[in-house]
């Protein structure tokens, strides 16, 4: 059953991605000021959104773990966090490529880029913490506590860094940014397959985590 859902989701994500790529590359025109490279935004922005959806899922799973003490929630939390980190990395790397071409620099201490980097480091700490704890039950508990701290910190990080500086092109959504409606639409359309991909990866990672735990438990019996 789980197998079929996975294949179905992955297939759907693939189809949508192919369709979106076709529209992006062949139907949508180049952007007036930026040229062809603007298309990176169709992955840059959905990757960031997906990363935060993952971190939110990890938060919910962590709270549920602390309430129910069922290690399945811990598996959800770690899987979602890892996938979130992967999408965060996609966001950072695509942002850097774009910045190199448009601004001529790989990195700039722009507010959003910096915030994403701080969040990425925060959640990388989550994975480091897990590696340092051997007992799976203790690991799950400590990781859940850390996940809650990290998620509470995320909005504070964004606010503070926004005050600190801003150089980013006006936020595309909920901001002063101006964008062609067709392009604007594509941003959301492409979020669907990216999010689906995130779900598929999370489910795969969860399976791995549960197998791993079963192996650990068997080893304890000797």
């Amino acid at each position: 059953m789980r197998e079929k859902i996975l294949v179905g989701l992955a297939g759907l994500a693939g189809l949508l991605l192919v369709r979106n790529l076709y529209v992006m590359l062949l139907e949508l025109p180049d952007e007036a000021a930026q040229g062809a490279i603007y298309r990176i935004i169709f992955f840059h922005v959905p990757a960031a959104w997906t990363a935060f959806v993952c971190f939110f899922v990890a938060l919910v799973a962590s709270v549920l773990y602390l309430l129910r003490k069922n290690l399945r929630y811990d598996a959800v939390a770690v899987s979602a966090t890892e996938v979130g980190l992967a999408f965060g990395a996609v966001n950072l790397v695509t942002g850097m490529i774009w910045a190199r071409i448009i601004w001529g620099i790989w990195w700039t201490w722009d507010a959003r880029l910096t915030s994403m980097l701080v969040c990425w480091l925060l959640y990388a700490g989550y994975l480091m913490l897990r590696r340092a704890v051997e007992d799976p039950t203790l690991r799950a508990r400590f990781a859940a506590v850390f996940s809650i701290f990290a998620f509470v910190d995320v909005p504070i990080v964004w606010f503070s860094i926004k005050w600190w500086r801003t150089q980013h092109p006006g936020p595309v959504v909920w901001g002063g940014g101006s964008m062609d409606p067709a392009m604007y639409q594509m941003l959301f359309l492409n979020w669907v397959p990216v999010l689906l991909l995130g779900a598929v990866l999370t489910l795969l990672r969860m399976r791995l985590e549960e197998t791993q735990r079963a192996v650990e438990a068997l080893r304890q019996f000797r």
Partner: protein
Amino acid sequence: MRFVRQALAIAAKDLRAEMRTKEAWNASLAFALVILLLFSFAFEPTAEQTREIAGGLLWLVFAFAGALILNRSFARELPNDCLDALVASPVAPAALYLGKALASFLLLTAVELVALPVFGVFYNVRWTAQFWPLMLVLVLGTWALTVIGTIFSALTVNLRLRELMLPTLVYPLLVPGLMAAMQLMTPLVVGQPLGPELYDWLKLLAGFDIIFTALSLALVETVLVG
């Protein structure tokens, strides 16, 4: 009332034990002074340069020095399984946490109060001109460091590589608090008053303290007992 008494008993115990060995105090203070010295090689310590980076520099020193004190906070409970004795006693975990946070806060503040005049001399700034606003920022920023550092000291105390885990986990979390403290400290430490444009940072720092104090108090029992 009992809660406060228990927290104070824990804080007094930590400070008394620290005064006997001076382990954390000596390491932290020496470290702070060495970094202050090293920073002077990183840039030309002229009045101009100092004015721009004073706040950032000082808080980096305090954060590094703080990690040494905070690492010791719960590590102190490890020999003889003292942590078990405390958790099994009627002390509320929140009181235990606050007591230990208070002890670390006082220790770190003391280190800072030694480091500040040294900084004033090395870098030739009139740091006393805005004394009370400076103290306010010092207290708020140091509390931010200790409140998060103490809960993670409890979380990492039994882990492999404890000394490395604590800063790795804590510094990214502290980014907003440290950033606010740096912004506020920069004018104050060179004797300029706080401009109204900085009030938002003061609010952010106070809010940061409140949010993470509340969160730590809520989760400390989960960390210690689970």
